[in-house]
């Protein structure tokens, strides 16, 4: 128990956060790359074609993990935003601001792959239905969080708190995205994967496997990229502290 408490306190302080996460970067990157390569090959070559969509459905192996990440990362931003706002933790601010561009990237990827699939399958690139509109709003929220932050470039801590407020208010969009296909008549299909099981969705393991591998791969990529960015964020905002200058003397 003491170890967990100690770890928790260490992760909250910028110097030890910087030191500990430095060891994680390489393994995370290797895992992300290996899983992505495996997932893509498995999904593009070994998974069977769909009975109705043929091979076109394979874009799902990018689209669905990207969509999950777009919401997962926003959730992380919202939670670290609350921590940053209430407890004023510097590491939470770093995690929040480091996550925003990655989340925006996954959201853009989700929208793009969805549009490319939608044209041949539905017959249109874009439809202003609930799922698509709420996902587009998510992209604007990411841009808003980054925009508010860069608007206050004279005080990064104040900027982070303001960005946190925007992020927290935007949390309301997450359940809307999740349930948009159930609350409104939407052209977007319902969830294919559910933790509760059920009779519909993807039952075939050879189709499910690449999807889950890609979901893991994107998680590792996010962790790698986010920690990398959070570390540089801490170096930048703490540049006048002694631990930062020590880093550069040691190396």
């Amino acid at each position, binding site marked *: 128990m003491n170890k967990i408490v100690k770890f928790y306190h260490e992760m909250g302080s910028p110097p030890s956060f910087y030191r500990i996460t430095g060891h994680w970067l390489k393994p995370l990157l290797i895992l992300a790359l290996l899983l992505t390569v495996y997932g893509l090959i498995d999904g593009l070559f070994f998974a069977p*074609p769909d009975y109705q969509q043929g091979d076109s459905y394979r874009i799902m192996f990018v689209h669905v993990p990207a969509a999950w990440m777009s919401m997962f990362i926003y959730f992380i931003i919202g939670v670290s935003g609350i921590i940053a706002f209430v407890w004023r933790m510097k590491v939470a601010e770093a995690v929040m601001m480091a996550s925003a561009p990655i989340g925006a990237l996954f959201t853009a990827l989700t929208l793009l792959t969805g549009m490319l699939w939608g044209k041949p399958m*539905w017959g249109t690139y874009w439809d202003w239905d609930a799922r698509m509109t709420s996902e587009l709003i998510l992209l604007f929220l990411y841009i808003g969080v980054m925009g508010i932050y860069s608007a206050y470039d004279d005080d990064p801590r104040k900027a982070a708190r303001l960005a946190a407020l925007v992020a927290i208010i935007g949390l*309301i969009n997450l359940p809307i995205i999740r349930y948009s296909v159930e609350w409104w008549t939407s*052209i977007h299909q319902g969830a294919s994967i559910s933790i509760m099981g059920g009779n519909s969705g993807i*039952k*075939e393991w050879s189709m499910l496997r690449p999807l889950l591998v890609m979901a893991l791969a994107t998680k590792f990529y996010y962790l790698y990229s986010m920690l990398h960015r959070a570390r540089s964020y801490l170096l930048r905002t703490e540049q006048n502290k002694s631990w930062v200058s020590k880093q550069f003397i040691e190396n």
Partner: protein
Amino acid sequence: MTPTRKKRLILISLVIMGVAVATAIFLTAFKDNIMFFKSPTEVSQNDYPENRSFRLGGMVKEGSLQRLENSLKIQFTVTDYGADVTVEYEGILPDLFREGQGVVTIGQMRSDNIFAAEEVLAKHDENYMPPEVADVLQTEVQQ
């Protein structure tokens, strides 16, 4: 927890609750107006906007798809198993357009009670499976 932190936490919780309630009220109030989406049953009861586009959604009735002679137009029936509406459309149908599958059409109701669609979108369900599995399921249903 120190009093200042407690105050901030309460403030943030109030902000979240306020935004949630406002959004919920907004979405409930506009639920019907966000999209003019009508089912064949509603259309058959004349519950649709006249002289403007709206969405008609339902299933394409089995065996109803036909090409009109001497034109590029196609006709099919959209049903919700309660009522039927005949839809006329000229253009390329999406890949997933099938009889017995979901469809969303956007267009206007003509005076001869035929829905003139400007756009036809296929709706896909959440089921994905290899063709062999689909064949097995099909034969099981027939037996």
